[in-house]
């Protein structure tokens, strides 16, 4: 990777939600960068803060309850400092997002075409006819057959795979520099998932759009991304190239996650599950948050841990240099 200016440069991002008079932390001191055109995965289990991170990049967290601090640098501008009005010019135009459930992300009372045109007209000085033409092109680009006819159809008239294509069409209609994709294939069947992954990768490669791919599926990351951020309990615990993390993970949690995949154990054998469970936000400690489940933990691990190691492989584990942890290969 060249030392160009990163497209996205998040540093010290900390997010909490106001809940019943107290603040509940959801993201602690998150720092990572995405280069122009790069495809980066973000993995972790439910509650680790993946979705909140994605939403924060577009200022989509509810301002009444969410407290965001730190810096979200995008193209040299700190997004956390922008007025809602200026952010609106970036959202949908420079940074777009797609979601897991296209049925709830699309508005049921507007046609697919209206929803794409609306996005285009919000960002470009075009009239309704031109917007319609561009929307039909966008539908064609995502492989929707008979795009001129689909333009006038409502979300419920489309199948799950077609709805996800329509959502991608909306997101890419303004040629954003960064696409945040939050579990975009999780609700789809595996044969349709393969289609959508191929489509996403082809379209983003063509337009040079960078991708932040949020998922719990390590197979999807291996397929779609070159780098992966592993999240645990609101912290980034490992940031590495995908192939490196699959073969030689440096964090015990990442290793445990990989080893617990049924695919990697002999049929019928006991799966190496990670003992215990993910701590609730109230249980987060100042030191390494994985300590209660980690078989390598020492007393020193109870002290706060920083991201260590050399680019491009950083890990939040004080013992990483002494441990040799298994990845997908034993």
């Amino acid at each position, binding site marked *: 990777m060249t030392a160009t200016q990163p497209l996205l440069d998040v540093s010290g991002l900390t997010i909490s939600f106001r809940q019943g008079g107290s603040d509940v932390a959801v993201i602690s001191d998150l720092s990572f960068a995405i280069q122009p055109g790069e495809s980066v995965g973000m993995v972790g289990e*439910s509650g680790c803060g993946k979705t909140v991170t994605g939403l924060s990049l577009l200022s989509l967290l509810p301002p009444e309850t969410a407290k965001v601090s730190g810096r979200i640098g995008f193209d040299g501008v700190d997004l956390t400092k922008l007025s809602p009005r200026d952010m609106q010019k970036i959202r949908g135009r420079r940074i777009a997002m797609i979601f897991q459930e296209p049925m709830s992300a699309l508005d049921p009372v507007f046609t697919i075409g209206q929803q794409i045109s609306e996005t285009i007209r919000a960002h470009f000085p075009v009239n309704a006819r031109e917007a319609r033409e561009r929307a039909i092109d966008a539908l064609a680009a995502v492989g929707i057959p008979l795009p001129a006819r689909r333009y006038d159809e409502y979300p419920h008239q489309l199948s*799950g795979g077609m709805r996800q294509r329509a959502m991608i069409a909306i997101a890419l209609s303004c040629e954003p520099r960064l696409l945040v994709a939050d579990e975009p294939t999780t609700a789809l069947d595996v*044969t349709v998932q393969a289609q959508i992954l191929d489509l996403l990768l082809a379209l983003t490669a063509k337009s040079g759009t960078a991708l932040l791919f949020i998922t719990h599926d390590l197979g999807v990351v291996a397929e779609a991304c070159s780098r992966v951020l592993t999240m645990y309990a609101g912290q980034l615990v490992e940031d590495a190239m*995908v192939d490196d993390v699959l073969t030689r993970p440096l964090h015990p949690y990442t290793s*445990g996650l990989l080893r617990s995949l049924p695919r990697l154990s002999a049929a*019928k054998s006991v*799966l190496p*599950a990670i003992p215990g469970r*993910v701590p609730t936000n109230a249980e987060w400690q100042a030191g390494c948050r994985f300590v209660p489940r980690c078989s390598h933990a020492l007393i020193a691990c109870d002290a706060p841990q920083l991201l260590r190691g050399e680019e491009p492989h950083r890990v939040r584990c004080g013992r990483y240099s002494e441990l040799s942890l298994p990845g997908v290969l034993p």
Partner: protein
Amino acid sequence: MTPLLSVEDLRVYFPSGQRGETVKAVDGVTFSVGAGETFGIIGESGSGKSTLARAMVGLIPPTDGRIFHAGQDIATMSGAEFARHRRSFQIVFQDPNAALDPRMSIGQTVREPLDIVNADSRADRDRRVLRLLDHVGLNPELALRYPHELSGGQKQRANIARALALEPKLIVCDEVVAALDVSIQADILNLFARLQAELGLAYVFITHDLGVVGHVADRIAVMYLGKLVEMGSADQILHHPLHPYTKALLSSEPLPLPKAMRTGTRIVLEGEIPSPVSPPSGCRFRTRCWMTQDKCAEKEPAWLKYGADRWNACHFTDFNRDGEASDRAPSAAMPPAH
């Protein structure tokens, strides 16, 4: 030996709202499951696998065909006889949350089947509940808790405890780990394996997850649009698939492997599963199959036996086997388990 569960040419149709249409959710399925065995059924949404699951345990009456529990046709049983009989055939569902009554404590939920059967004293039943919770790895203190106080994995354990309460011989597991995180999923799969070893249970494991089914199943059936397209041992299905749909399914699964090791050619199917209201003529898979020919639209491929307990329904199976089977087999890309 009589199989524990067998299903013969089972059909389950539902009337669909408009224009008197019929949804043929399950449309002629035949298989059997032996005692202590794990039988996997894989298929995508809309394949009819959940309807099949419910019909197997008598929760949905079949439109046609027969279901045998330990050799006895459940349609010929009297109500009382069936009520007694069905205790041996339990089901666990996908969403651990929806399957628990939020107003009942975990202890009440697990005790409910025992209350209905009403065999022992109340004190014995309560003691049995504590043993069941312990058996599925839940702290017996959780008996007094309510579902919202439990994590997803704990809730699924409670559902399993309830299914075990009446000492079944077979449990139908309908996407039981689909809603759980990877690390919890491994825990629950280990629990199922331990219970099987201790209690000699048989499982029908219904899932869309090839990694899961490959890990747990002895035999696997592949379902597409209401019908089985292929059935055989887990090894045969995952490593030497015959049917083009099975091959496509296997090759679609994204594998968590470094680039250099992902060598298999991916078969990306076009389109999506058609509507079960008007399935395609002939072979139902033909609209998405890359090797379809005129014959496929004209004639439905027969469900034929290939070797010991190996079944397949495709007009071109011999072609597959001799021609493209070896280099198309995508699961070969996965390293052998150690």
